[in-house]
């Protein structure tokens, strides 16, 4: 069975600084997708970034980028130029290409300090 592990329950960063959130996963599949979702206090789950496992190039979305290490089964999220609005719970998630089921990590609560 697939598992997703986020080892940092809470993190803090100063506004305009860079922060990296860690995620590791375990799977025997070759066809899968990885995601970072953001859940602010409003509780809306917002898709931040998506990575296809078959792509070697790391995904980038504006200030958000990932470091995808397939062999190490690692998928970290880097947030550059952190903004107050980035304060939220961040969930790493694994989607099986075989079952279309999304499995979430336990989340990292990120606080951006002014």
């Amino acid at each position, binding site marked *: 069975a697939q598992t997703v592990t986020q080892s940092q329950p809470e993190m803090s960063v100063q506004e305009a600084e860079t922060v990296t959130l860690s995620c590791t996963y375990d799977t025997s599949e070759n066809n899968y997708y990885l995601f970072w979702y953001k859940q602010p206090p*409003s509780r809306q789950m*917002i*898709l931040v970034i*998506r990575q296809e496992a078959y792509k070697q190039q790391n995904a980038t979305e504006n200030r958000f980028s990932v470091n995808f290490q397939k062999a190490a089964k690692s998928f970290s999220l880097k947030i550059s130029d952190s903004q107050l609005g980035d304060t939220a719970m961040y969930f790493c998630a694994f*989607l099986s290409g075989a079952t*279309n*089921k*999304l499995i*979430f*990590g336990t989340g990292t609560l990120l606080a951006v300090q002014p």
Partner: protein
Amino acid sequence: SAVISQKPSRDICQRGTSLTIQCQVDSQVTMMFWYRQQPGQSLTLIATANQGSEATYESGFVIDKFPISRPNLTFSTLTVSNMSPEDSSIYLCSAGQGLSTDTQYFGPGTRLTVL
């Protein structure tokens, strides 16, 4: 991305009653899902809502407790039956984009409190 709405956004219910949560997508989608997020926890998949057939439930969730309907490609409901305080959670629905099965977008969630 798909735009998903849920009703109600929150509710407070008495033990032993049932609540039906509605999920509406702004376009036809192949896949729809229901998740539970208990207080301070991550999301757990309850079931996949299949159009025209019975929902597929995950281990630990049963149809009698969480009946699901999916009458068409844009709408689904989840009922939480015979509620107890342990059912107090946020319930979220998600959907793929059109025929896509490789990305899920989420509704705003329904915060349920059972007294």
